[in-house]
Every structure is written in C-alpha cells, then in structure tokens.
C-alpha cells in the first residue's frame, strides 16, 4: 500500500489512457496543439491548487523543497496566461494559414507548454511522495 501511495498520478493516466487516433479530415497539428494546451491548463491548475493547499504542511516537512516548488509554481502563475495565450493565438494563425513557418512558431509555443507541464508533473509527484 505504501508503494501504491507514491505512484505519481500522471503514470496512472499514461498507463490507462493513450492518445486517440485522429479522425480523418482533422489536422493532426491542430488536434495536438489543442490537446497540449488543454492538458497544460489542467495540469497548471492542479499544481497551483495542490501547492497552495499543501504549502504550510510541505514547509514544515521540508522547507527547502517547499520553497523550490513554490518558486516554480509562482513562475507558472506569473507566465501561464502569456504562454497559454500565445499557444492559442499561434494555433489560430496556423489554422488560418497552414504554412511551415506558422507550424514552426506553433511548435515553439507548444514546446514551452510541454516543458512546463512535464516539470509540473514532477512536482505533483514530489508533493504526493511527501504524503501531502
């Protein structure tokens, strides 16, 4: 049971859900962009709420780690509107004009979201590992 308690939730999703094949007539670039953006919104919400709710207890358990997580999550809070907004703007630009250049710009914005989402998942797992 102790081992089960420490399984990061993200792994449950990875084990149990895989990306669905894209329906014919839909642009994989757009579908992937919209999936990535929605996943980022939800993951950012989760880590921000978790961090907010558990900060006091986390700080008591490990002040240094708590400060590190807070620093990351504050950076998210500060930048998320711009990052997410940029991804949405570039997705719409690409939909209007599906050029290689617009795709490249969109890919750059999505890479920022993917990186932040990945790091957020790491901290979600760290918070859970503390039993919080």
């Amino acid at each position, binding site marked *: *049971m102790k081992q*089960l*308690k420490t*399984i990061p*939730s993200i792994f*449950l*999703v990875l084990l*149990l*859900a*895989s*990306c*669905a*094949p*894209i*329906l014919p007539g*839909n*642009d994989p670039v*757009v*579908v992937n962009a*919209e*999936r990535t*953006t*929605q*996943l980022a*919104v*939800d*993951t950012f*919400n*989760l880590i*921000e*709420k*978790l*961090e*907010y*709710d558990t*900060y006091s207890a986390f700080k008591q358990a490990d002040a240094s780690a708590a*400060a590190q997580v*807070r*620093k990351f*999550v*504050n950076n998210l*809070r*500060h930048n*998320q*509107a711009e990052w*997410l*907004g940029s991804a*949405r703007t570039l997705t719409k630009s690409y*939909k209007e004009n599906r050029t290689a250049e617009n795709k490249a710009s969109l890919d750059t914005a999505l890479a920022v979201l993917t990186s932040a989402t990945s790091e957020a998942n790491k901290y*979600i797992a760290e918070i*859970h590992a503390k039993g919080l």
Partner: protein
Amino acid sequence: METTALIALISTLVPVANDVIGWIFKAQATLKQNAELTPEQEAALDAEIAKLKTNPEEWQKEQPI
C-alpha cells in the same frame, strides 16, 4: 476492464486528493480528443485562459515564499 472502472478502482486503493482524481478524468478525456475543437469548445478554452488574466482564483495568484 473498462478504463473508467479501472480508474475508479485504483482511486479507492490510492489515497489521492479529489483534485487529482478530477485531473485524471479530465486528462484522460483530453488525450482521447481525436478531432479539432468545435467553436464552442474553443471559446470555453479561450475563456478559461482569459480568466487567468482578468479574474484569477486566489491559488492562481503568485504567493509569498
């Protein structure tokens, strides 16, 4: 076993917060998205993002270290 039932089973074994359970279900739905968003879905996503700037929740605001 159906994925939803399996998640429900695991959630009884793994003591995680309700927030995380909700995220798991939402993430699963997102990963299963296989078509471009409808105009209504796009508007909902854009509204959620816009709210971060105009009217964020307390936990979405920067916190003192």
